[in-house]
Each structure stands twice: as C-alpha cells, then as structure tokens.
C-alpha cells in the first residue's frame, strides 16, 4: 500500500479501494465483521435545536450496522447536536430517530440504554469515584433495586476493564488518572452497558496524539471484536478517515456527503465544507486519505 504514496495532490483517488470494507484484495487484516448484529439506527426528516433555534434541519441518515461511522464538519455545523439526537439526549423538533425501526420516543428509556450507549463530550463524575465504581454504573440499565451488583454485572465490569486495559487501575480514583486513562474509563463504562450501538462525542478531545490513537484503536477493537456499531464525532479528518468505515460530512445542519473515507475526504469536499484548501494524499501506511492543509479558502 505504501507504493500508493505520492507527495502530490493527485493522490486523492488512489486510496479509494483500500478504505472500502468490501475490497478484499487491499482490506487490512482487521477488516470489519461481516455479520452485523440486529440493532439498527436511523434518522428520518430529523430536525433538532435548542431554544427554538434549529441546528439540524430535515436530516436523513442510515447508520451502517456493525461499522464505524464518523461525523465530520466545521464548528457549529450540528454534528454534536445530531449525535445527541441519535442518542435521545435531545428530543427531535420534527422527524424521528428510529432504533430497530421503532421511534426513539416510543421506547422506554431503560430499553434504549440496553441497546445504545452514549459518551458525552465532556462527561462529568463526582469526585471520589473509583474506576470500577464508574464502570459499574454502566450496568444500571440491566439492574433492579434488588439486583445491585450480580455475578453477571461483575464479570461484565471485569471484561469492560480488561478491554480498556484498566484492570490494574480498577480501584484507583478517577481524578488520579491521566486524561487518556480517564477517557478509557468512560468508554469502559459504555462497554459495560453491553450495547450494540456506541455513540461517542469527540472521544479524543484534550488528548495528545498518542492518546488519541490509543482511544481510536480501542474503538476499532470494539467494533472488530463484537461488531458494535459505532458513531462518533471527530474533529481530526485524517484520523476519522483512518479509523472509520463510513464518513458523514455535515455543514449548516445538513449532510453534504457520506460514504467511504476515500469517497468523502477529497480536496473539493474540504473546500466546500470547511472552506479549507488542502492536499489529500493517501496515507503511506493505511492507504486512507490524509489531509495536508494548504490554507483557508
């Protein structure tokens, strides 16, 4: 794949095949799982907003099952708002979000929480909480007042901590962790929720590049291992292209383009959506599109 590397802007299209899940010849060894699980998520004619101000307008979206989808777009385009709408944190002004074909507003909240977990952009926890305690809260949708921490809960918390490499830090206080570890602890909580769909709002914010990669590698492992559907909002377009199967580009509350990273992340689109002049080359390692900014258009 590294032979596809070419330093000039003409490399835009060379990565097309590599990024597509259905391209066996060039697919990386960690290709997305073929059998998607049952839970589907989609939006129909969805409008969202705050205080009478509409941020997302009449949007249709079919989230691909068992794939990693990233929503990209400039600040204020409504990508976080869309994610909140998909995660029923924000009720729709118009249209609907469908979970398994049924309107989100018709589902009991607890039933949604067994199928879909969501990590807000800057999640907050009270101080004095241990990592294990935080992760155990993810079991809430499956607990009752007389079932507070069953053996099943314990093993789910254990494997969530294993998956995020936090088992050794289980008894540590959350505030004593580094930023990357803390973010993994939060993701661990959503894993303990054992949902088919995982929504992440800018999971890499405030992290240095190494920790950003660490979190995204984890997200990818979760998708590849269990076929979890992941939808995340990411700021870094190159990282989005590298770790996603599907990219949704948003501008002014609507979807401008969606498809494989190679189809969406192009110089033309970056100019249209971000007002950014950039060269898009193929990443010599992955073959995925990589953005080299030139300047503001």
């Amino acid at each position, binding site marked *: 794949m590294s032979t596809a590397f070419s330093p000039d802007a003409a490399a835009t299209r060379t990565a097309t095949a590599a990024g597509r899940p259905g391209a066996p010849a060039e697919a990386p060894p960690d290709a997305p799982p073929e059998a998607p699980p049952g839970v589907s998520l989609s939006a129909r004619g969805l409008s969202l907003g705050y205080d009478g101000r509409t941020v997302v307008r009449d949007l249709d979206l079919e989230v691909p099952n068992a794939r990693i989808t990233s929503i990209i777009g400039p600040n204020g385009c409504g990508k976080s708002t869309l994610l909140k709408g998909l995660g029923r*944190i924000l009720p729709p002004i118009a249209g609907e979000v469908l979970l398994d074909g049924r309107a989100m507003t018709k589902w009991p909240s607890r039933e949604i929480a067994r199928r879909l977990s969501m990590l807000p952009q800057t*999640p907050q926890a009270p101080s004095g909480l241990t990592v294990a305690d935080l992760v155990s809260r993810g079991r809430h949708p499956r607990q009752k007042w007389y079932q507070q921490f*069953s053996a099943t809960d314990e093993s789910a918390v254990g494997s969530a901590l294993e998956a995020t490499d936090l088992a050794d830090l289980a008894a540590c206080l959350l505030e004593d962790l580094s930023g990357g570890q803390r973010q993994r602890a939060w993701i661990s909580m959503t894993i303990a929720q054992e949902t088919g769909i995982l929504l992440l709002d800018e999971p890499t914010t405030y992290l240095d590049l190494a920790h950003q990669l660490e979190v995204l590698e984890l997200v990818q492992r979760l998708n590849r291992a269990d076929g979890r559907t992941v939808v995340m909002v990411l700021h870094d377009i190159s990282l989005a292209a590298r770790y996603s199967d599907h990219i949704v580009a948003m501008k002014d509350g609507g979807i401008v383009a969606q498809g494989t990273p190679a189809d969406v992340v192009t110089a033309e689109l970056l100019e249209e959506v971000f007002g950014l002049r950039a060269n898009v080359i193929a990443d010599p390692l992955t073959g995925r599109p990589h953005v080299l900014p030139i300047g503001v258009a």
Partner: protein
Amino acid sequence: MPPLMLSSSNYAGIRALRTRRSSWRWNPRVLILGIILAVLVFAAMGVHVAYGGLPLAYGDVLRSLLGDASQPRTYLAVTEFRAPRMVAALVVGLCLAAAGAITQSVARNPLASPDILGITSGASFGAVSVLVIAGGGYAGLSGLAATVGLPAAAFTMGLVTGAAAYVLAYRNGLDSYRLVLVGLGLNGLATSLTTWLLTLGDVTNAGQALTWMMGSLNGRDWPLVVPMTMFAVPLLVLACFAGRWLELLSFGEDTATGLGIRTGRIRVLCLSLAVLLASIGTVLAGPLTFVALASPQIARILCRTAVPPVAASALTGALFVLLADTVAAHALPVSLPVGVATAVLGAPYLIYLVLNYQRRLT
C-alpha cells in the same frame, strides 16, 4: 443453590452480598459510620433531655421516657417539656440534612442546600405570614392555625420557592451555578418579604416571630411535634431509597439519560421530596441555617463517597441539631436559640466551602 444462600464478593472495592435472585451493594465504611452515628445520636438524645433547668440523672430520664411515672416531677419535665423538644431537634436535623443531601446531589453542587436555594426562607415566609396574621408565636396561635395553618403555609411557600428556583434556573438542563444564583436571589426576596411582614404585625407578634426566624426549638410541644414526625418518617425512608438515583444524577444530565434514567421526572421527584423535608424542618425550628448545608458534606467526607449518603447525612444532621440545641440552651448563662449555634458553627464552614468549591468539581 438454595434460594437464600448468601455469598459475598469484593470486586476492586465494590462489595456485594448475593442471594440467588438478588444482589446488594454495600459499603463497610458507610455502614460502620452509620452505626456509630446512630449510637451518638441516641446518646445526644439522652444528653439533650438530661440537661435542663435542673440536671436530671440519665437513669431517671431513661425510666421516665420508658413510661415510669414513679417520680412525677421528673416524669413531667421529661415527657411534657423536654422530650417533645428533643424529638423536634432530632426530626429537624434528620429532615434538613436529608433535604440537603438530595438538593446537593441533584444540583451537583455542595453549595446547593435548601437554605441557600431559598426553600427554607420561602417556607419561613409562609409560616411568618400565619404568625403575623393569626397572632404571633405558637402561644398566641389558636390550635388549628398552629397545627394546620402554619405548616400548610410553610409547605406551600416552600414548594413555591423550590419550583420557582427550578423553573427560573432551568434552560436546556439544570445548571448548578444558575440554580445557586437564582436561589440566592429568591432567598433574599423571601427574607426581605418576611422582614416587611414583621413591620405589619404588632410589636409582641413581631418579637415572637423574630425569635422563631432565628431558628428556635423553644416551647415545641407534642401537638406540633407528633404530626410532623409522622409526616417526616415516610419521607425520610423515601429519601434513603432515592440514594441510587442521586448517585446517577450526579453524573450530569447526558450521562444519566444515557444510562436510562428519566432525568427530568426523577429530578422533580427528588427536589419535591427535599422541599417537603426542608419545610418540615422549618415548621419545627424556623429557618435553621447551615444544618442542610454542612451535614451532608461532613457525612460525605467521613464516608468517602462520591455523593452524600442520605442516611448518614440525616444522622449527622440530627447529631448536629441535638448538640447545637443542648449547647445553645445550656452552655451559656443566657439561653440562646439553636439557630445562633448552628450559624456560629456553620458560617466558617460556608466560607471554607466557597473557597474550596473549584477543587471539589472534577
């Protein structure tokens, strides 16, 4: 496995007792502290009754409380004068601190206690209007106005103030800073309206109302204490059960919703419970300051939990009020209202809390 076979587990500090169909989380530190606090509260109840015009022997006090009328003078002093005041102090402490634990958890802010949010001032505005309109002090009130009118007015105004704080502070979620600021405003409004009311009544009424407003347990008798206690008990039980919700609400709106909590409904339920509890405390003792603010945080620090545990907070509050009333009434040559003692003890704590507020938020 037989259905009642118990097993216990400890996973990275999460302790659970399990039967075949149920599992219960428990925290040894909270349990032990709860037991210690309960024992201390019992001791403080005894001390509270034993101190009075003339000190009584603890044995006589205990015998009288258990119904031994062989020493009529002691029996009368204990059961008719000192016991109702002691029970009032106990219930006031339990209710105010439980209310504080709830509001602080819901607002995710250690400053957001019913006395800061204006709920107790609102309730006391309601109570003072009855005092001034129907004739001052409990002594001057006719039976019905004292046992029904005053509590009803306090509950109504407490709920109105609580609802106003919630509605005014709510915009796309409950922001704790906004809630505290709106609450401080309402607090000021209710306090000044109450002061204005005092100028309307005659001097005797105003004087009695003023003592009441400082927070006093003086002259609380059974006709007021018994119904309030009976009202408080089920609310306190509910408050303890609300603990699980409070823990989840402390993660903030989005995370709690993501975990399947109907945050709006549960927050309103919890806050209503807190308003009722705070109003009971206010009806019994006036707008007692700092009990609701300090007790939950003291309990939280002692128990080392993330949110104030309701039961331990309530016991801390009861201990606080019982001791404060004993000290205020008997330690000095002049008998002071309990509110003076809680304020003197609580004010430095409030300053400390404000100075440390930033560090407490993660």
